């Protein structure tokens, strides 16, 4: 089977990748939930709003006033609004910044637990990280928002997971795989919707 002209034998994948495996990539389903563990600095430069179109107004700002410069260096600010109106999250020089971020930003994660965002993080990954700024999204929703194929988002997200910048969890906790109880709760939920 080793019919290579160079004579170099085929090597197992785990050797050719330097022993680095990426289990996260294969486990990402369409409905796996991606959560950003950190705030992407300079998101505005490479982020979703960095392309076409003017930045949207700050929901916490008086109408007609642009409070943020086009390019910012402070982490944790975002130009895309409307996802959640949480003006306290934005960096405002008048507010105690650390407090605001710790209290509102990521209640489920310890701030500082995630490594800093590498400066050379590719723009695509940066954009994805920016998309998760404001809440969790499933893989398929992220793909729809970024107008990317699901497979591409899997690769980008896996990279971010490997870097420790994003966490992923399966759609249903492994301990509670689809079962009768879950079906009943779905049925109950649908019934409640109609009321």
């Amino acid at each position, binding site marked *: 089977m080793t019919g290579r002209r160079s004579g170099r034998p085929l090597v197992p994948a785990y050797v050719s990748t330097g022993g680095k495996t990426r289990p996260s990539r294969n486990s990402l389903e369409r409905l796996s939930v991606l959560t950003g563990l950190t705030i992407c600095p300079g998101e505005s430069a490479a982020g979703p709003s960095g392309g*076409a179109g003017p930045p949207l107004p700050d929901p916490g700002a008086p109408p007609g006033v642009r409070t943020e410069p086009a390019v910012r260096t402070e982490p944790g600010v975002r130009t895309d609004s*409307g996802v959640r109106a949480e003006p306290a999250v934005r960096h405002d020089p008048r507010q105690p910044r650390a407090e605001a971020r710790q209290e509102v930003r990521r209640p489920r994660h310890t701030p500082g637990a995630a490594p800093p965002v590498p400066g050379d993080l590719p723009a695509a990954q940066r954009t994805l990280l920016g998309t998760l700024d404001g809440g969790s*999204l499933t893989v398929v*929703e992220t793909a*729809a928002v970024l107008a990317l*194929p699901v497979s591409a988002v899997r690769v980008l997200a896996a990279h971010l997971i490997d870097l420790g910048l994003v966490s992923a969890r399966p759609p*249903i906790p492994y301990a509670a795989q689809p079962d009768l109880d879950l079906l009943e709760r779905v*049925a109950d*939920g649908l019934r409640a*919707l109609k009321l």
Partner: protein
Amino acid sequence: MASAPSSSSGLHLPDSARELVKILVAGPFGVGKTTLIDSVSEIRPLHTEEQLSEASVAVDDLAGVRDKTTTTVAIDFGRISLNGGIVLYLFGTPGQERFRSLWAEIAYGALGALVLVDTRRIDDSFEVLGLVEDAGLPYAVALNTFPDSRQYTEEQLRTSLDLDPGTPMIACDARDAHASVDALSSLVQHLLIRAGRGGAAAGMRRAPR
């Protein structure tokens, strides 16, 4: 990419989301899959562009679609947040044989499928039913009613679609949220019955809520 966040209002998952489940809304083109999803979804239906595999391309060519150079298909989806931290995703899944490669992946982990049928062109639904059955998904049939639909008896339709007697078949105006939720409920009741618990009994027990 640039325009996406402006339309993502309320897109991020609620913090209460614990379990994410999916149901496929399957049917031929134009049967009303996206209409149904739109009528019940809490977000405006989103879509992803899916690449078809090489094998599918070959089938595509055989089908005589000569000028079709792109081999992508848009998959629409929406979601409903239910009580108890459950988020139900609805995936509109095309019913053509050439999308078979997509089916395995999209059907993975799905609770079941709601197969939409247009009674004006019942033949179009045979492929879908085949794909759903091959995927091993339990399903219910929803008859999307159009003004000019011919009236058939349930027996005629069941015979025509070759449905198992236990498979639910309901009329459903896909534009109507209540009708769509009813159809989904019928499916889930069917899943419960299949899973071994009487849906009616479960419904009665929990009726006082």
